[in-house]
């Protein structure tokens, strides 16, 4: 039987930590020598630490499409989404519009709120008082595999 394991830990990274971090060497290692560098391994680099500030509020989303190409979001990329952040002007956000998820740039101009695509082929969307609209989370990073 396999068990799904979920740990409740306040203030600890929620996403599973790397099995083995990438060692950060304090000095270069020369090949062929019995390496004294082991003594200099000071800590391990943890990608979670770099990319995830609020593990409890962080979720991952995969995108399909090209509408955000000029923001560096390509077809098939994975977005890191932090739901704890208050969206500010020009943030890339996950928005919910009439029951649909969207990935757009939040843009405020005067009293107007716009959802912009980062691709000239797509029209901007003006948010009015009648729009059924909510920000689901703020995109903090994009993971692109070459």
């Amino acid at each position, binding site marked *: *039987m*396999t*068990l*799904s*394991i*979920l*740990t*409740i*830990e*306040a*203030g600890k990274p*929620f996403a599973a930590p790397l099995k083995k971090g990438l060692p950060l060497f304090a000095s270069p290692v020369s090949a062929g020598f019995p390496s004294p560098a082991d003594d200099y391994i000071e800590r391990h680099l943890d990608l979670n630490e770099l990319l995830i500030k*609020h593990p*409890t*509020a962080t*979720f*991952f*989303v*995969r*995108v*399909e*499409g*090209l*509408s*955000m190409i000029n923001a560096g*979001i390509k077809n098939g990329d*994975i977005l890191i989404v932090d*739901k*704890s952040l208050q969206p500010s002007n020009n943030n890339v956000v*996950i928005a*919910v519009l009439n*029951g*649909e*998820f*969207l*990935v757009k740039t939040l843009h405020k101009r005067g009293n107007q709120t716009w959802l912009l*695509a980062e691709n000239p082929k797509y029209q901007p969307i003006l948010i009015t008082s009648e729009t059924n609209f*909510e920000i*689901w989370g703020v995109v903090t990073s994009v993971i692109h595999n070459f």
Partner: protein
Amino acid sequence: MSELFALLDCNNFFASCERVFNPKLWGKPVVVLSNNDGCAIARSNEAKALGIKMGQPFFEWQHLLREHKVHVFSPNFPLYGDLSARTMAILHGWSENVEVYSIDEAFFTLNNEFIEDLETYCRQIRTHVKQWIGMPVSIGIAKTRTLAKVANELAKKHPEYRGVLELNEHNTEECLKKLPVGDVWGVGRRSSVKLKVYGIETAWDLIQKSDDWIRQKLTISGLRMVYELRGTACMEIEDLDDAKKHIISSRSFGRPVRKLSELKEAVASYMARAAEKLRSQHSMANVVTVYARSSLHTESYFGKSHTTVLPEPTNHTPTLIKAAHIGLEKIFEPDVAYKKAGIALSKFVPESFHQLNLFENDPARQKKQKLLKLIDSINLENGRHCVNFASTGFKKPWRMKQEFRSPNYTADWQQILKIKI
């Protein structure tokens, strides 16, 4: 100044989990089915309004699906476990004494010496959980756990409380006068019928009776419950288990415990007792929670809990112990003087569920069950390797009927939320 109890309860928890990653479900009727898609085990408010009852077999209300566009889901326990863990993690940041009571409920204490307005404080917790996780919760606050439960129910039922209600000297009487005695925690249906014979309709009527009268009619545990309703805290969390919903077993240690092996022994014995209880009421559990903590009165207070969602419901002692041990290993930290540990079983289904499944009466299946039990006991003696063998040898794609299961959004890279942009 005093310490008060609060109960946080996620609203329609499984249905709300389904909504987090699916905005099409917002404001729509949502029902989560039991394993094998047998009956309703969670309903959104909209589904409740259509008259779909808790535990009602699927076929009885299947006709509503098209008529009212009811969205139906097979249970996605890994997702529910993940969102539960996130919710509890947030709560641990707001109170230093959190007792996870089940996958969707936790008691915590609040000190009104340091917190000016408890309702405002709890509304902040509520907003925090809603924004970070997308989970709606209700919180009840009172002098005792039993009253906190009452407050929570009221906060959930009446939108004007905006999800949070504190019972205090001004409003307790009014609330207890409105509370039917059968709705009080721990008063069974039989007892409530008996009490009505004596003209006791509400919780308020009950607490007017003399201690002797109550002890005679409802035994000592009934008397303790009445004390709690009167505002004197006298119950431990395990006294409150709701026969059908949870089984809790925990104890304080005679001396501080530091070794993992000793904690494991303690937890195994609590689990053995809880599993017996579970079998005696012919239930199987879907969720196992284990916790351990230091003394509450040390500066370096340590307390953690861990919730495991089982791949299928069980009342098999070795499987349950194994789940608790794996959880314990995850939360264990050395150099802590542990004062108390405990386990909780929750999200029950009746044993008869398995019998409802066609395949369960298959003699081959029964043979496999026997074999599984044998392997489990071998595992218990010989360690982990055999568990792997069992899991690979027993993949039965037909085992669980799960036609309407949502993706495993939080635990499988292949199934994370997809957005077309």
